C-alpha cells in the first residue's frame, strides 16, 4: 500500500457522559472483545498499511495499555510500525493539541520523513470494516485532492452529531457543515480521509501559519471550493460511538446475526489485543438468552439481550437485561440491572437495583471496594 496511516484518538466527547471519565473514546470497549480503535487499526493492517501513527491526548491510559504492543495488529515490523504520539513540549511549542489539524501538524516530521505518497486519516471511534486501498483507487481515479469517506444515515438518525455533506453528481463535495444545528442532508462524513502526503503537509503548514487548528473547519470546509474534495460512499456497516446512546446501540447491534456474521465471520478479521483469559464459565443457575459473553466471565444468574465484556462475574439470582457490562465487573447476588451500562472494573453490591429507560440508558458507576464487601 502506498499510504501511511494516522488514527486520531485524542478526542473526548461530552455526549459520552460518565463513560468518558476513564478513557478516550477510542479506547471504549466494543462487542465484548474489542476496543473501538481496533476497527481502524485492523482496517489499516488489512489494507496493508504498514506505518501507522496513533495520536492521543485525552486520558490515554486505557488506550496506551491497549496499544502496549503493536503485534496484535501485526505492525511491529522492520519496515513501518505503530507509533503513538502524545503532546510533548518542544523548544518551539508548549501547547496541547489545539485541534485535529494541529495534532497532525505538531507531528509533521512523521509525515515529512515518510516516503509513501498518500496518507489515510481515520478516527478511532468508528466501528466499520473498510479497505482503504479501494478508497485510494477512487481517490486517484477522481484526481481528488482530498477524499472524504461518507455514509448515508438511516432515516431518523441524528445528523447533527456529524459533519453533514452535500455532493454533486460527480460526488464532489459542494457543501460541508460541521455538526449543523439544522440540516436536510442525510450524508455524513465518517471522519476518514485520504490525501496526498505533500498536499497534507502544505495545507497543515498553511493552517498553522494562520493559527488555524481544526482539520474539518479550517481545511475541509475552508478549501471546499478551491481543492477537489470528493466523497466516497461507504455502503457497509458504519457506526460512530460518540454518545452514550450511539455506544449502547452499536454494542446491541452485535446481537443481530447479520452484524456478527459481518464482523466476526467474514474476511477480513478484526484484530485486538489478546488477553490470556480462561473460557467463560456457566455455573448451576445460569440462564443466558440472546447475549454475547466474553472470555473470563463467570455467570451464575440470568442474562438476557446483553453484552457482557471480559472477566465479568455475575452473582447468583442476578438478572441482567438489555444491558452492557464492561470489563472486569463484579456483580453481587440478587442484583437487578436493566437498560444500563455498567462501567468497567466496577463492583456492584448484592441486592441492588439499577433500571434505566429505553432511550435513556443509565450509566452505572459505583466506586465500591471489591475486597471489602
Amino acid at each position: 500500500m502506498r499510504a501511511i496511516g494516522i488514527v486520531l484518538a485524542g478526542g473526548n466527547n461530552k455526549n459520552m457522559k460518565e463513560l468518558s471519565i476513564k478513557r478516550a473514546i477510542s479506547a471504549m470497549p466494543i462487542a465484548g472483545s474489542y476496543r473501538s480503535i481496533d476497527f481502524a487499526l485492523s482496517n489499516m493492517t488489512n489494507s496493508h498499511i504498514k506505518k501507522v501513527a496513533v495520536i492521543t491526548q485525552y486520558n490515554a491510559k486505557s488506550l496506551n495499555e491497549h496499544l502496549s504492543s503493536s503485534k496484535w495488529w501485526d505492525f511491529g515490523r522492520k519496515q513501518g510500525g505503530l507509533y503513538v504520539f502524545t503532546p510533548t513540549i518542544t523548544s518551539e511549542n508548549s501547547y496541547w493539541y489545539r485541534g485535529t489539524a494541529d495534532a497532525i501538524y505538531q507531528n509533521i516530521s512523521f509525515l515529512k520523513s515518510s516516503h509513501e505518497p498518500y496518507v489515510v486519516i481515520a478516527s478511532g471511534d468508528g466501528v466499520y470494516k473498510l479497505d482503504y486501498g479501494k478508497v485510494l483507487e477512487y481517490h486517484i481515479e477522481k484526481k481528488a485532492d482530498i477524499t472524504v469517506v461518507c455514509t448515508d444515515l438511516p432515516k431518523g438518525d441524528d445528523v447533527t452529531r456529524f459533519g453533514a455533506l452535500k455532493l454533486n453528481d460527480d460526488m464532489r463535495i459542494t457543501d460541508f457543515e460541521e455538526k449543523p444545528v439544522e440540516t436536510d442532508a442525510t450524508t455524513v462524513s465518517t471522519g476518514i480521509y485520504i490525501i496526498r502526503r505533500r498536499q497534507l503537509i502544505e495545507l497543515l503548514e498553511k493552517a498553522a501559519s494562520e493559527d488555524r487548528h481544526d482539520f474539518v473547519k479550517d481545511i475541509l470546509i475552508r478549501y471546499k471550493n478551491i481543492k477537489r474534495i470528493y466523497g466516497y460512499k461507504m455502503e457497509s456497516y458504519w457506526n460512530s460511538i460518540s454518545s452514550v446512546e450511539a455506544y449502547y446501540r452499536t454494542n446491541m447491534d452485535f446481537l443481530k446475526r447479520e452484524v456478527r456474521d459481518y464482523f466476526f465471520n467474514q474476511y477480513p478479521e478484526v484484530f485486538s489485543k489478546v488477553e490470556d483469559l480462561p473460557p467463560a464459565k456457566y455455573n448451576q443457575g445460569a440462564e443466558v438468552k440472546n447475549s454475547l459473553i466474553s472470555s473470563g466471565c463467570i455467570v451464575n444468574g440470568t442474562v438476557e439481550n446483553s453484552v457482557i465484556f471480559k472477566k465479568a462475574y455475575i452473582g447468583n439470582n442476578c438478572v441482567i437485561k438489555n444491558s452492557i457490562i464492561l470489563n472486569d465487573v463484579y456483580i453481587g447476588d440478587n442484583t437487578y440491572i436493566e437498560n444500563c451500562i455498567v462501567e468497567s472494573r466496577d463492583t456492584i453490591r448484592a441486592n441492588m437495583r439499577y433500571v434505566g429507560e429505553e432511550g435513556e440508558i443509565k450509566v452505572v458507576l459505583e466506586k465500591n471496594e471489591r475486597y471489602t464487601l
Partner: protein
Amino acid sequence: MIKKEMIAMLLAGGQGSRLGVLTAKVAKPAVAFGGKYRIIDFPLSNCINSGIDTVGVLTQYQPLRLNAHIGIGIPWDLDRNVGGVTVLPPYEKSNSSEWYSGTANAIYQNLAYMDSYNPDYVLILSGDHIYKMDYEVMLDYHKANNADVTIAAMPVPMEEASRFGIVVTDEKNKITDFQEKPEHPRSNLASMGIYIFSYKVLKEALLKLSNQPGCDFGKHIIPYCHENGKRLFAYEYNSYWKDVGTLGSYWEANMELIDIIPVFNLYEEYWKIYTKSDALPPQYVADTAKIEKCIIGEGSNIYGEVYSSVIGCGVTVEEGAVIKDSIIMKGAVIGKNTKIDKAIIAEDVVIGDNCIIGEGEDVPNEKEPKIYSFGLATIGEGAVIPDGVTIGKNVAITGVTTIEDYDNGVLASGKSLIKAGEV
C-alpha cells in the same frame, strides 16, 4: 558468555496411544484441553511463571500442530534474545541417524543444545500433565539438600500405588529405593516424571549410558545415579496434578474444570496459564439456548442446550441439540436436534442433524478395549457424521463417514469406524 542457571527440557515427542483417535494426527501434548488450551500450555506456563526462560521442546511424533502452536514462543513470553523456546526434533548426524529411542536418549542427543547455555541445573519435564508448579521452589529445595537429582513425587492412595513408579525415602526425603509399578508398594510417593538434575551429574550419566538402547530416565538414568551413590531426593508435591494419559482421565480432568470452585482453578490471577489464541469474538448465546455447568471458549455460537460440558473455541451448537457431560473441541459443529451424551468430539468435527451419540449399553470396545472404555464415545479430528445416525458407547470414529457406513443408521456400542487412514 551465555549462562543460564537452569534450563528446562520438555519431552513432547510421545504419541500418547492411549488417547486413541485423539492422537491419530497430533502428538499428545498438542491435544486440546479445557476449552481453549493445549496440554503443553501447562508445563510451558509453569516454566515462564517459575522464571525459566530457556526451554527445549523435544518433538518426534506428529509435530506439525505442536510446532505451529509453539512458534517462537510468543504466547508464553518465551521469545527471547538469549534462550527462549527451541523446538528440538531428531536430526541426522554425520555418523549415525536415529530417532529418539527413549526419554533420556532424546536428551542425550541434544547435549549440544544444553551445553550452549552452560546450565548448572536441568529440569526435565513431560508434556502431558495438567498442574501448576513453581519449579523455582523445587530448585531451592534441590540446592538446600545439596542434591544431585530431585524427583517431584506426590502421595497417592496406597491401593493405587502399584500403578505408579514409587520412590521410597528416609525421614529427610532422601531416596533410598525405587519400585516400578510394585505389587507390594513400600511407600505411596509416586514419581511425577519431573526431575531436576545438577547438569554435571546428568551429562555424566547420559554419556555413560549413551549406548543403552531406549535409554529412559525412570528405567536407566535414575537407577544409574542411585547405584553410583548420587544424592537423590524426593520433592513432595501436594496440589493438583493429573496425568491425562487415558481417555478416562482426560475426560475426568476436563470435567473437573466445571465444578463450582474447581480444584484446578483457571480463574485466578496468580499463575496464569498462557496459550496461543487468536483474537476471537465473544461467544453468542441465543434465545433458544440453555447452558448450565459449562465452560465455553471464545467465538462459539450456542443455539442448543449444553449441560456439564467443556466446549472449545469457535464451536457451533445448533438449535435443539442437547449436549451432556461431553468435551467438544475447537471448531466443531453439532447439528440440529442432535443428542450427545458423554462423548469426546475432537477439533473440526461436523456432526449432522438428528443424531444420537453415546446411547446404548456400556460394552467394551471390540478392538481396543483398553483404550475405548469409560463409556465414552470418541470422535477424531475432522470426522464427519451424517444426519440421523445413532452411535453407541465406547466407540471410536475417524474420517468422513456416510450413512452407508452405519448398519441401519446405527453404530453399536463397542464398535470402531475408522475411515481415511489408519489409526
